[in-house]
């Protein structure tokens, strides 16, 4: 669970602190351009680092600096709690005069308040751990150190932290791009979830029992669902099919032929299964209610919130009144921005003391 996310000088996020500590599920609301999706973009940068991208130019560009202020460092800080242990990671980038690519100014990973490694510009210091003595080495200042520092074992805090960060589910699905075809397995879907087939295969290969959780949910939302199959269609390729059955007969559909909303049900089922099988995970879902029929939105939002009540963390953004009503004042954050020249501010809805109809106030632009 995220205890702290701090971002400075990244697009509209300036000195920005996301207050979500201790909340299993949180909703971000605000007008278009307020910065909701940018919070997801900041998490994506941290995730890319954990997934192995270490070239700074592939992570951030000078144009990502707030109002092109390249004289101020761009900073990302995340503090998480995993199995009651606290991990903290900081990376700051700067643009050195005469360069086009930003470089690492500062980087550090802390475990229970003690450094695993620290870094200033090119100098990386690995802290003493057990019998391993402190070590120092130089690294290209256009490379982030986290992906290349060697972990000792799967129990190594460095490994556990990187794995958690890499396996965050940062989702903004585009159902039209989801075919259900795959030629590999993964536990790390891309934000568009165009690799749904690979995620499905990877999750079931990692935890076959996850299918029961997937099946349980999907049969609630699609009572005529009978089975999901992932047969080989070539030497290394698979293609998902979905079987439906009623007393009138049976029907098999290629996954690609499901409706956009039904594909979102499938994604939701995999989120539940992932949180149980390789969680607890953080799931940031940008507008999860897109593509859903009105009668399903409340159920869908509630199901996601319930899935994270016992572990993990769910962060959603939304403009949908049904979604907004299924969150409460203490777990709804309002992001605001007065103009494109000003940074995003964030306040809990409970601090705003809205009287009367919240959705009405949003519709009237009064929030």
């Amino acid at each position, binding site marked *: 669970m995220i205890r702290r996310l701090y971002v400075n000088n990244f697009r509209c996020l300036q000195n920005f602190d996301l207050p979500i500590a201790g909340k299993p599920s949180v909703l971000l609301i605000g007008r278009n351009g307020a910065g909701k999706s940018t919070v997801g973009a900041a998490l994506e940068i941290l995730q890319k680092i954990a997934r192995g991208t270490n070239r700074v130019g592939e992570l951030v560009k000078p144009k990502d600096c707030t109002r092109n202020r390249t004289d101020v460092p761009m900073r990302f800080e995340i503090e998480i709690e995993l199995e009651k242990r606290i991990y903290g990671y900081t990376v700051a980038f700067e643009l050195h005069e005469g360069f086009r690519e930003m470089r690492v100014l500062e980087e550090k990973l802390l475990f229970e308040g003690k450094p695993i490694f620290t870094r200033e510009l090119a100098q990386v210091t690995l802290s003493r751990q057990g019998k391993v003595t402190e070590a120092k080495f130089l690294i290209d200042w256009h490379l982030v150190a986290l992906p290349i520092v060697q972990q000792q074992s799967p129990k190594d805090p460095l490994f556990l932290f990187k794995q958690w960060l890499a396996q965050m589910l940062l989702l903004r699905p585009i159902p039209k791009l989801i075919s259900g075809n795959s030629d590999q397995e993964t536990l790390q879907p891309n934000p568009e979830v165009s690799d749904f087939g690979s995620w499905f295969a990877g999750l079931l290969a990692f935890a076959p029992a996850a299918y029961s959780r997937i099946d349980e949910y999907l049969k*609630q*939302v*699609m*009572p*005529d669902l009978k089975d999901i199959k992932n047969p080989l269609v070539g030497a290394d390729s698979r293609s998902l099919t979905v079987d439906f059955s009623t007393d009138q007969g049976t029907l098999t559909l290629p996954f690609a032929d499901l409706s956009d909303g039904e594909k979102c049900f499938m994604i939701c089922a995999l989120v539940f299964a992932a949180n149980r099988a390789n969680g607890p995970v953080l799931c940031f879902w940008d507008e999860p209610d897109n593509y859903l029929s009105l*009668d399903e939105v*409340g*159920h869908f939002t*509630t*199901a996601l*919130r*319930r899935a994270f*009540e*016992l572990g993990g963390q769910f962060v959603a953004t939304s403009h949908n*009144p049904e979604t907004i*009503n*299924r*969150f*409460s*004042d*203490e*777990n709804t954050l309002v992001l605001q921005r007065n103009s494109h020249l000003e940074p995003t501010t964030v306040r809990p809805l409970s601090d705003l003391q809205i009287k*009367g*109809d*919240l*959705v009405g106030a949003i519709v009237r632009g009064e929030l």
Partner: protein
Amino acid sequence: MAPNLHLPHVLVLPEDRADSQLANGFLLTLPLFSRRMQVLVEAGGWTRAIDQFEADHIVGLERWPNRFLVLLLDFDNHEGRLTHVKSRIPEHLQDRVFVLGSLTNPEDLRRSFGTSLEDIGKALAKDCQEDSYESWGHDLLRHNAAEIDRLRNFVRPILFPTN
């Protein structure tokens, strides 16, 4: 796909956002079967809730015999409000409509419990699940006892089918 309205289900009509947040807590309670409960858009006041009940929900309750409806209102210390609201529920639907609420308003409830409305909703749902009266026995809630007993008979098996 069309939802199966022939199966037992519960609609909750909250008077305002505070009552809606109590219902949210109820929905978050495990192992409540949340798909059998739908919290409707807040009515915007108890009189509007009754008007909306008469205009929109009597027809639905008559059409769907497995539908139950909970009106979640504030009693604002008016002793006669429950009687008045009950008098507006047609005789043939009395068994399937329930009227619940805080003796004053949910804000007093929140202050008195010292926690969020969502957490109070969770505690109330836990009582229903476990057949206890710990939270429902609170000074601001104990007047609901008769309605809670009816709910336990009719609605509990729908929302907690594994109990």
